[in-house]
């Protein structure tokens, strides 16, 4: 079976995934890019909209989309897609200056 890569998700899909997150922290425990403690509720809140704090921004930049966070999620969410959304937000905010 050919394993295809999953492309990005749209805003409504990201919102849906964030709403479905049960906050078990499994994705953050499985992440090799996360160097400092970040609470999942803070990450979820800052992922979609509003100001992005420095630790979350550092984490978003450090995320290298390895997908290690996807398999451990008990509700089948795609944290990598959420992190990509955060990256795009950072990119937009930087170029919009």
């Amino acid at each position: 079976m050919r394993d295809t890569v999953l492309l990005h998700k749209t805003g409504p899909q990201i919102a849906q995934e964030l709403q479905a997150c049960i906050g078990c922290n499994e994705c953050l425990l499985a992440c090799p890019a996360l160097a400092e403690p970040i609470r999942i509720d803070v990450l979820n809140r800052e992922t979609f909209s509003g100001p992005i704090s420095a630790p979350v921004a550092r984490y978003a930049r450090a995320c290298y989309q390895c997908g290690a966070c996807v398999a451990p999620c008990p509700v089948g969410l795609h944290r990598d897609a959420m992190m990509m959304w955060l990256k795009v937000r950072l990119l937009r905010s930087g170029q919009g200056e």
Partner: protein
Amino acid sequence: MHLSYRETKTESQQGEKGYSWLFFSAGRPWLVALLVTLLLLALSVAFFVWYLHHSSDLSSDSIAGYAYAISGTICLVLAATLYSVRRRSRRRAVGQLNAALNWHVFLGILGIALLFMHSFGNFNPRTGTYALYGMIALVISGFVGRTLDRIMPRLIAGEVRKALTEQGDDRIEHISQKLQSIVVHNNERVQAFSAGSPAAAKSLVPVPFEPTKQSLNTPWDLAYISLEATPQELSAEAPQYRFIPDKKSNLARPGALMPGAQEHISELERVQQAMRREQFYRYIIRYWRLFHVALALLTVGLTIWHIVYAAQLLIPTFLH
């Protein structure tokens, strides 16, 4: 909880912003790993320099050579196993895997440096040299992989930005809706035109094929020429409205009869290209990791070959 993506200017001004290519953030675990590695490396190099000046046995199978071989192999084994074990471990804390990844990188660098010293500049085409080449390729592939890990996600973010609207919706769907609205608008215009002019409507609406009796009554004799007008002659004489723009006219340009459609189609192609590139970059991240693992397995094989070869020489020496 209801989420809506409405980022105001004030909100974006408050928090962190920007995604620089040269972002760098070193946490405490990274600095600790770096300092320990530099310390061990400095001690190893200092001993190597001292040994060069105080010993005549400068070979890989000297006591110092074995010490470097064993310590270098231990470093590489730890680099390979610690990270893999930590990834599969059930007992984890946030940030531990990142620390393990830092040690994976630094132990790899330390291991290759120690094995270089173990060679004492002897690069004869033997098993040890092949194992060393394998390790060099492995460490280089690790460096390239870490560089790709920084570059590729940034490139993907750029492509995703093109594929999404400012509101975060799918741009392809957005363009398709615009194209659909253009088609609907044009259809409405055509219908309005048809309703306004019955003659024009007759020319624009396709005429269904109606077999006439004349065609059935056509005599079999091909030499027979009727003086009556043929259906083609009749239709040629009927009033027809055909819109043929002048070649120099702006209306002769492609897409002129569907204003805005060509721009949307070009935009659609650009978005599709961005999505293809996004997929390509994701494949690079994925397959480079697989390549690194494959290279690690090859290097393990070459190292085992070298150890078996060295053991065949050493065991008889120790036994006698």
